[in-house]
C-alpha cells in the first residue's frame, strides 16, 4: 500500500483554487475551536436563505443570548460572520466552499493529535495497492503513518453518503487487509448523526468497517486514538 498525489486534472486545478481561498482557512480555523452548537450555527447559516445577522442571532439564543460569556459570544459572532460570507456566494461556489471547509476542518482536527500525526496528514491523495487499478477520485484527507494509516472522505451533508464513496472506502480497507496493512477508513459528515444513520440504513454498499463521524462527534477526530466507531 502506498500513497500518491492525485493527478492535477482540470477539476483538481479548479477545486484547488477553492481550497486555497482565505475564507476556507478562516472558517476552518474558527470551527476547529468550536463546539457543536457553533458548528450547527455554521451549517445553518451556510445553508441559509436569509442574510440578516440579527435573525440568526435570535435563532441561536444559546450562543448569542444575554447570559452567554463575552468570549463565547465573540467566537459565535466570528463564525456567524464567516458563514454569512459563504452564504453570500453563488450556489455552485457556495457548495464547493462548504465542502472545502469540511476537508480543511478535518485536516486541522486530526493534526491536533500530536506532531507525529500532524506531519503525516495529507490532502487529495490516492492509495495504490499491488495489482489493483487505482481509484480515480482521491481521498480528501489521509493520515500516512506506518501501521495506523487512515483515509477520510468529507461530506457537507448526509445526502453525500452513497454507494460510490462507501464502495471506494471499503475497497481500500479490504485491499489493505490483503496486504496486511492496517488502514482505517471513514466519512466525516458535517450533518447530524441521526441523518447519517437514516442515510446509511438504506445503503446496501458495505460500510460496517467504515467509521462515520457526524457533526456532533467531530471533536473525536482530534483525540489521540481517533474518533470512536459510530457504527
Amino acid at each position: 500500500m502506498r500513497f500518491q498525489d492525485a493527478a492535477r486534472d482540470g477539476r483538481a486545478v479548479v477545486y484547488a483554487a477553492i481550497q486555497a481561498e482565505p475564507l476556507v482557512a478562516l472558517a476552518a480555523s474558527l470551527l476547529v475551536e468550536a463546539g457543536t452548537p457553533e458548528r450547527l450555527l455554521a451549517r445553518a447559516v451556510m445553508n441559509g436563505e436569509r442574510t440578516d445577522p440579527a435573525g440568526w442571532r435570535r435563532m441561536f439564543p444559546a450562543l448569542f443570548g444575554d447570559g452567554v460569556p463575552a468570549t463565547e459570544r465573540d467566537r459565535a459572532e466570528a463564525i456567524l460572520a464567516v458563514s454569512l460570507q459563504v452564504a453570500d456566494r453563488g450556489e455552485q461556489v457556495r457548495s464547493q466552499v462548504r465542502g472545502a471547509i469540511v476537508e480543511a476542518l478535518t485536516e486541522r482536527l486530526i493534526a491536533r493529535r500530536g506532531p507525529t500525526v500532524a506531519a503525516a496528514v495529507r490532502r487529495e491523495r490516492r492509495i495504490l495497492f499491488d495489482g489493483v487499478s487505482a481509484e480515480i477520485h482521491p481521498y480528501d484527507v489521509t493520515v500516512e503513518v506506518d501501521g495506523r494509516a487512515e483515509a477520510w472522505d468529507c461530506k457537507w451533508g448526509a445526502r453525500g453518503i452513497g454507494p460510490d464513496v462507501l464502495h471506494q472506502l471499503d475497497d481500500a480497507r479490504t485491499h489493505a487487509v490483503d496486504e496486511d496493512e492496517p488502514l482505517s477508513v471513514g466519512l466525516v459528515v458535517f450533518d447530524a448523526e441521526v441523518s447519517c444513520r437514516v442515510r446509511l440504513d438504506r445503503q446496501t454498499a458495505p460500510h460496517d468497517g467504515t467509521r462515520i463521524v457526524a457533526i456532533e462527534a467531530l471533536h473525536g477526530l482530534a483525540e489521540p486514538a481517533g474518533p470512536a466507531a459510530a457504527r
Partner: protein
Amino acid sequence: MASALVRELLDRAILAHRALADLGEEVEDEWTYVNDLHDAWAARLTQLADARGDEPVAAGASDAIDEAIAEIEAIADPHRAIDWLSTFPQVVVLAIGERG
C-alpha cells in the same frame, strides 16, 4: 400573560418540519430518504413534547423557533429543503435547551 409551553413550540415546529419534507419530496430520487429523515426527527420532537411539553418556554426559545420557521418557510428549492430537514430540528432542539 402566561408563558408559552414547550409543547406549543414543538407542535409548531413539527408542522413546519412536515411542510419542509413535503417540499423536499419534490426530489423524486430522495423521496424515501426525505420521509425516513422526517419520521426520525418527528419522533424525536414528539418524544421531547411528551417529556417536557408542560414546561414553560425559556427566554429566547420562542423567538428562536419563530426565526427557524421563518427561515425554512423562505426556502423554495427542494434540495435546500432536504439540507434543512436535519438542521431545522437540531436548531429547535438546541433552542429548548437539549443537546441533540
